[in-house]
């Protein structure tokens, strides 16, 4: 912005200069000179009067401030010596000698070392041999302009639509992001109502938002829908801030709108995916239930009628008939165990197992398991001992699952032990970390070779016992038990020494899973 015309100062006429003015009375003349002097001294701009040799012959207080020197100090100095700037003052002076005013800007350093942005205007020959140099300090204005340019660049480069509008909803600014989002150019929309970006069905929302805004609430990430020029509706997230004026308070608002189409699509996709998964899981559950039902029905006839024959309900049996029927019975019961365990594993893997957590007395549970295993142990001539603490140990867990695991471990112990005993123990941990209980099943059986220990929990692992005696089993029991233990927030660990025996430990958290 060029420097405005400065009031022509009244300077003392140079000696010998011809006075062309209308003669005035002495008094009026003095009055006029005082008047002009006051204007000269009161001017905001720094004014210096130079002679033909660029020597300063007069300065106003603004000039003293700009140069940071006193008036007596400045008078009689050549302007070139006083003015330290990034333009050559000689060049500037020469330009002015053609008689035209010269205007422009430069940076100068005043005596106090401060760098200032300055606009100058050199008006040569305001009087004979007198030239006026007017300087205006625009440092602050330049800084504000630079800040504004920076902010404008940020706003302009944002992907978000940033729009400001006045209190009555008239659009005042519109960035490139807004053009991209709404489809209007800034020139088309500035001065028009912001409501043209709001779909009819959302009009009521403007008043609502405004009311929240006036209550001083921060409107942030408000999810709604806005209207493009082509009529399409875009999901957006709005953040609204007040535009304040020192004098009159809120004078408008700026709205940042972010296009959340992609996020919404993503959310919908995730939702649909979840629904699909739910449906798939439900279908799997139904399939498992159906399979369970369909496999059991024919097995009922096999196990049932084999049983009635062996009970001799229809009539007597020969020894060979009995032997063969027993083979069918064992096979059928094995098949039933397989079906049960495969379904259990499938249910755990599809996440269809609902744990029923309840206060469970470990002692009671272990006594129940021992009671059910005892006949098997005694039939083999084994001792079944238990070592349970006197203090009741109660944990919150799924009783049925724990019973299933311990029954499996104790059953295996009896199965793989030919001589000696099976011991069921219980202890609680007092070390670091959350309290846990350990249920230990120790046997004096065949033991497991070290290389087999890692395979133990895999499905359908049928290890050859170290004593070479083949045993019945589905190959799923330990696999299932470990899965159940994990489900309960615990684990099963094993230690074994061939020919000395094995120790299986079920560790469970005392608190909820």
């Amino acid at each position, binding site marked *: 912005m060029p420097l405005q015309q400065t009031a022509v100062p009244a300077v003392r006429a140079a000696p010998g200069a011809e006075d062309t003015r209308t003669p005035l009375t002495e008094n009026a003349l003095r009055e006029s000179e005082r008047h002009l002097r006051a204007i000269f001294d009161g001017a905001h701009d720094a004014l210096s009067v130079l002679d033909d040799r660029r020597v300063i012959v007069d300065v106003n207080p603004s000039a003293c401030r700009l140069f940071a020197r006193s008036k007596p100090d400045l008078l009689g100095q050549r302007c070139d010596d006083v003015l330290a700037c990034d333009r050559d003052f000689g060049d500037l002076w020469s330009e002015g000698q053609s008689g035209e005013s010269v205007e422009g800007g430069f940076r100068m350093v005043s005596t106090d070392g401060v760098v200032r942005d300055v606009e100058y205007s050199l008006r040569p020959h305001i009087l004979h041999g007198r030239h006026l140099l007017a300087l205006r300090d625009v440092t602050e204005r330049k800084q504000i302009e630079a800040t504004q340019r920076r902010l404008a660049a940020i706003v302009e480069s944002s992907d978000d639509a940033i729009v400001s509008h006045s209190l009555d909803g008239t659009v005042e600014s519109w960035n490139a992001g807004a053009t991209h989002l709404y489809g209007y150019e800034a020139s088309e929309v500035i001065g028009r109502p912001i409501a043209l970006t709001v779909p009819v069905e959302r009009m009521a929302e403007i008043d609502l938002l405004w009311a929240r805004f006036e209550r001083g609430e921060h409107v942030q990430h408000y999810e709604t829908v806005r209207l493009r020029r082509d009529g399409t509706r875009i999901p957006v997230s709005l953040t609204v801030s007040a535009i304040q004026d020192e004098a009159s308070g809120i004078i408008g608002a700026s709205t940042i709108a972010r296009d959340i189409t992609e996020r919404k699509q993503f959310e919908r996709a995730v939702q649909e995916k979840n629904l699909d998964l739910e449906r798939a899981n439900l279908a799997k559950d139904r399939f498992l239930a159906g399979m*369970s039902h369909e496999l*059991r029905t024919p*097995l*009922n006839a096999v196990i*049932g*009628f084999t*049983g009635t024959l062996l*009970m001799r309900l229809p009539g007597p049996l020969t020894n060979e008939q009995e032997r063969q029927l027993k083979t069918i019975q064992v096979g059928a019961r094995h098949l039933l165990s397989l079906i049960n365990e495969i379904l259990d594993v499938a*249910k755990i893997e599809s996440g269809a197992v609902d744990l029923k957590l309840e206060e469970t007395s470990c002692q009671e549970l272990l006594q129940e398991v021992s009671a059910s295993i005892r006949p098997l142990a005694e039939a083999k001539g084994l001792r079944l001992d238990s070592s349970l603490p006197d203090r009741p140990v109660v944990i919150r867990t799924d009783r049925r699952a724990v019973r299933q695991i311990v029954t499996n471990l104790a059953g295996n112990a009896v199965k793989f032990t030919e001589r000696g005993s099976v011991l069921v123990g219980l202890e609680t941990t007092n070390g670091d970390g959350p309290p846990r209980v350990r249920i230990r099943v120790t046997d004096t059986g065949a033991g497991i070779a070290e290389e087999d220990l890692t395979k133990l929990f895999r499905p359908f692992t049928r290890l050859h016992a170290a004593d070479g005696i083949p045993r019945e089993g589905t190959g799923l029991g330990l696999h299932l038990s470990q899965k159940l233990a994990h489900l309960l927030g615990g684990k099963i660990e094993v230690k074994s020494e061939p020919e000395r025996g094995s120790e299986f430990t079920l560790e469970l958290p005392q608190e909820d899973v």
Partner: protein
Amino acid sequence: MNARIVVIEDNETNLDLMSFLLRAFGHETLEARSGEEGLALIAREAPDLLLCDLDLPGIDGYEVIQRLRALRGLDRTPAIAVTAYAMAGDRERALRAGYDGYIPKPIFPETFVQQVEGFIAAGRRPSSAPTNRPTMAQRGD
């Protein structure tokens, strides 16, 4: 203890198995192959016990027990679900529907009759609704 037992089962083999077993132990069996037929049989014969499959053509075993529990004078008939629905939760579902007992298939003939006789001796479970006014609402919990 000779009891009269209605058996509702649509699978001929399984019906045959249960009937044979029960008769072998001296009980009288009355056979039905659908829920509707079974309920008619109960209404006519007022048996000592009902054994009922859950997966039936027409009304299923859950519906059978609801209707039985609404039959004035017969609502206290002990009833056992004998079913191949043997996944976790199936027992609870059957008991909630109004059955007094639940025996999963396959049945074990060595213990089956003993189990069944236990229910005849015990009669209706103690938590049952009052004799004269059982309602659907009380059953449908």
